[in-house]
């Protein structure tokens, strides 16, 4: 008898209503008996269909397969597959903002159907086909008239706090969500925020006063005998959060990378030629998922996306990722997911037992890695030897489209302006030698009127 290969996904272990498990490479969600009534109401109230109509929830199909733990199992559903999971600390400002607005919209629709969101975790939102949606089907419970929103605090800590910090102080403060996976503590948020946020009544209330209340109202008599909270007031609270989040924006911040393509050292013809070469190599490899590392605003990601390839456009500069996301949102691009990740320090495995949030490498390998105008930064700016770069790429992807830029190129020379040239091994010959340990070269094409060559490589079977 063939052994069934199955395991529970660590990301769903906190939920008593059910969990995700993988069986023979297919992802399922077990609904526990304890969630039976809520699930029945969720379907019967049409909440499921209303959310699907607005593309706010991941669709699923009910299956007749056996549950992972048979005693507790009520039903097993199969959610639509999301090919790449991303985390809030990898999103740009507008991605987090859209995820927050989607959460509030869902809560409003749920209230209309007599249900409420029992949690408001940013990790329950994923970007799928260009849009944020809720992936946790078991996030709803019956709304009990007169009760407050149980996920209010979580919403403030996971969405509002990082958004206001990014908008009012510094966009890089989103990285705090990497340390505080449950949300940025409100006392810390309040101490980091500038005075001007205290002058905006709603922000003052939801963040500053809220933080003080967390410290000083822990034994209030309302905890024993809570007064009834009207649905009107609850909707008012959601509307107020929604209005305030909609108003949040990033101060205009100049990034040297935003203008990168206007300042290339080769003519426009070269850019067009480069696009053609990338397109030809993608046709050769036929990948389903591409990771475009150092994607900038994603002009080469678009070449892949136009071929209906899911393209994860990764860059460590927040401003370019923001531009990439907003540009793609405007045109309704479904195949590009821009993310803020520093590939010299990629997202690590985190959470309980280091297994809840997976590292970037664990979410791979991608079918193809695009590494255009990146190698010289890794080798010269970060002093990374070719051998280590090649090993990293061989772990991250099954094939590679990579650009080699000769040392005489003015962009490389710029990197050497303020430092000694200790990079004797930075030669095309050495590059090929080290990469051949992990890859076989299928083709290489020089970019006309430049000192650049693009290679297409495939990982060796070891």
């Amino acid at each position, binding site marked *: 008898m063939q052994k069934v290969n199955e395991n529970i996904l660590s990301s769903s272990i906190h939920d008593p209503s059910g969990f995700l498990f993988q069986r023979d490479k297919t992802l399922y969600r077990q609904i526990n008996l304890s969630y039976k009534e809520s699930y029945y109401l969720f379907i019967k109230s049409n909440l499921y269909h209303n959310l699907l109509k607005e593309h706010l929830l991941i669709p699923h199909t009910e299956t007749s397969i056996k549950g992972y733990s048979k005693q507790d199992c009520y039903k097993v559903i199969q959610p639509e597959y999301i090919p790449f999971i991303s985390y809030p600390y990898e999103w740009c400002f507008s991605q987090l903002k859209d995820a927050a607005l989607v959460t509030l919209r869902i809560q409003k629709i749920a209230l209309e159907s007599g249900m409420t969101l029992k949690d408001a975790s940013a990790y329950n939102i994923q970007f799928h086909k260009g849009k944020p949606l809720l992936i946790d089907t078991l996030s709803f419970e019956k709304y009990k008239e007169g009760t407050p929103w149980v996920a209010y605090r979580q919403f403030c800590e996971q969405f509002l706090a990082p958004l206001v910090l990014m908008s009012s102080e510094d966009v890089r403060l989103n990285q705090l969500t990497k340390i505080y996976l449950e949300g940025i503590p409100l006392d810390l948020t309040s101490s980091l925020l500038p005075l001007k946020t205290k002058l905006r009544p709603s922000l003052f209330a939801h963040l500053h006063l809220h933080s*003080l209340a967390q410290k000083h109202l822990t034994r209030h008599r*309302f905890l024993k005998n809570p007064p009834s909270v009207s649905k009107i007031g*609850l909707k008012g609270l959601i509307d107020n959060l929604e209005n305030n989040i909609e108003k949040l924006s990033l101060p205009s911040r100049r990034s040297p990378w935003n203008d990168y393509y206007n300042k290339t050292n080769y003519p426009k013809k070269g850019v067009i030629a480069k696009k053609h070469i990338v397109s030809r190599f993608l046709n050769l490899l036929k990948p389903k998922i591409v990771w475009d590392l150092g994607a900038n605003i994603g002009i080469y990601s678009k070449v892949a996306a136009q071929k209906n390839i899911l393209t994860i456009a990764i860059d460590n500069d927040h401003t370019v990722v923001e531009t990439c996301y907003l540009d793609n949102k405007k045109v309704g691009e479904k195949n590009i997911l821009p993310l803020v990740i520093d590939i010299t320090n990629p997202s690590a495995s985190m959470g309980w037992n280091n297994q809840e949030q997976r590292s970037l490498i664990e979410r791979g390998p991608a079918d193809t890695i695009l590494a255009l105008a990146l190698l010289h930064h890794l080798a010269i700016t970060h002093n990374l030897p070719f051998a280590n770069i090649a090993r990293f790429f061989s772990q991250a992807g099954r094939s590679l489209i990579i650009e080699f830029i000769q040392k005489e190129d003015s962009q490389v020379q710029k990197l050497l302006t303020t430092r000694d040239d200790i990079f004797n091994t930075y030669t095309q010959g050495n590059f090929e030698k080290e990469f051949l340990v992990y890859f076989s070269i299928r083709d290489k094409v020089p970019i006309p009127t430049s000192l650049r060559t693009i290679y297409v490589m495939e990982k060796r079977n070891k």
Partner: protein
Amino acid sequence: MYKQILKGILIVTTTSLVFPPKTYAYIDPGSGSYVFQIVLTILFTAVITTKTYWKKMLIFIKTLVIKLIKTKNAEGK
């Protein structure tokens, strides 16, 4: 009801001024959030209800004035 709201706001504002910004006691921030949300939601209920009645009152006054003007005009003719 309004007294309760005012009392809630007063408690939070006073404590914010009197207590130091950092405390290290064993506390559950969830409880404080819960109480705070109740206070905030009651406040929103009061504001929304007042707004609704205010709008209704304005419409009522407007209709009344229009009626009066129409009656006056009709009498004038």
